[in-house]
């Protein structure tokens, strides 16, 4: 089969990147050599010119120090958090948030419902969501909240697309994935050592004495599947609609977000399904 000139050209480029000469490559492809030679010479000129663009070393060092300082602050915060047992941390977060909401007022909390990732009230919105999850009674309620929040993130992506903010769309895609992860991943109980993720709504083979519980868990899985399917349909429809209206420069990031999100929803649904069919 005849190889495409693009493939041959790329092979030669790879060899040149690795330090081989243009002549070595031309010898390997004598038939294409007349076409390849001028293009490879142009490529070599461009490689040399591109490599002349160098950042100022003092800028690189300054930014490196700034990032290290930010990392250090993050680590200190994480260490402080790690000293508090997880259940205390969650309730402390919930109580702090409730107190905070009482202090800043119900109006602010209500206003935060409409906050967007680039807005000052957005952290209040996320804290409110965390409180809801913490206070939810059961794992299934927590899972449903995460589905609801994943869909909410998709709505925020639509608004960010309208405002032309590509990076916020990209970051929200990651947040959707994290919410969907939490639909089926549960914290390991401290006394039990298990490997791999645990289903929030598992449907193990029912033992006679566990019949009622298994029935309930099977129903939970069905409910989750349905909620996920509906959420997927709504989120993807909203994003596809946004894609149609988006400016050209934003379309690739939106398209990628749609593909990633669809993959994440499908993965979550298939895990729930496989759990309920066991």
């Amino acid at each position, binding site marked *: 089969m005849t190889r*495409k000139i693009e493939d041959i050209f790329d092979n030669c480029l790879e060899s040149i990147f690795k330090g081989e000469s243009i002549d070595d490559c031309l010898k390997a492809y004598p038939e294409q050599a007349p076409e390849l030679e001028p293009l490879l010479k142009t490529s070599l000129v461009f490689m040399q010119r591109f490599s002349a*663009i160098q950042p100022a070393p003092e800028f690189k060092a300054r930014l490196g120090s700034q*990032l290290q300082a930010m990392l250090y602050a993050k680590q200190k915060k994480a260490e402080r958090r790690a000293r508090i047992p997880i259940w205390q941390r969650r309730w402390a977060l919930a109580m702090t948030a409730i107190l905070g909401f009482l202090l800043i007022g119900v109006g602010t909390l209500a206003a935060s419902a409409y906050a967007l990732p680039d807005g000052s009230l957005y952290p209040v919105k996320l804290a409110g969501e965390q409180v809801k999850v913490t206070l939810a009674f059961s794992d299934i309620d927590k899972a449903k909240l995460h589905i609801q929040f994943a869909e909410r993130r998709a709505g925020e992506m639509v608004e960010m697309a309208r405002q032309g903010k590509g990076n916020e769309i990209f970051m929200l895609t990651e947040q959707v994935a994290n919410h969907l992860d939490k639909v089926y991943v549960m914290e390991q109980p401290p006394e039990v050592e298990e490997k791999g993720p645990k289903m929030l709504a598992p449907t193990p083979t029912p033992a006679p004495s566990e019949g009622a519980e298994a029935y309930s868990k099977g129903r939970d899985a069905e409910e989750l599947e349905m909620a996920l399917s509906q959420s997927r349909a709504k989120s993807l429809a909203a994003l596809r609609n946004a894609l149609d209206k988006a400016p050209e420069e934003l379309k690739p990031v939106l398209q*990628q977000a749609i593909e*990633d999100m669809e993959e994440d929803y499908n993965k979550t649904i298939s895990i729930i399904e496989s759990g309920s069919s066991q």
Partner: protein
Amino acid sequence: MSIEKDVVSRAIKGDGGAFAQLYEEHFDRIYRYVYLKVGNQAEAEDLTQEVFVKALEAIGSYKWRNLPFVAWLFRIAHNQVIDYLRKQGKVGKVVLEDDITLVSGSNPAFMAERELEIEELINNVKKLSPAQREVISLRFGSGLSVAEVAKALGKNPGTVKALQYNGIVALRKLMLGDR
């Protein structure tokens, strides 16, 4: 687990050394990519800074999607540049500053020649189609492999190779036309 996956996994868990390693590895190529897009040293520095700060903030929620870390970083850089150009009303344009210092050295004549070459390079690259420009910047400017460029842009490797080939053909014509 690959070395990169190990480093990224540690960075996700908040390991400062791992993040520093990723910064060292990718800083130059991100800067070069941004520079080619904005054509201005001060703005390229501001945007590169924003890219790494955003990456640091978001690394905790990084998801493995069969996507090399560098492709994730380039998506942040790409979006940051697009946001910036949109705010400036410069989408699709690259504006070169009048007085730029790109290369340092002790020979002024050599430096001036180099700077002219780079100016010519940026001017030619901006005449390519947006997709060709993106591929050429990532492949030549940032040294990404075809597979990495494909992942970063969400295109298949065959398309990337075709864009690369056609981009170089176009650049050659532009270079010859300049003389």
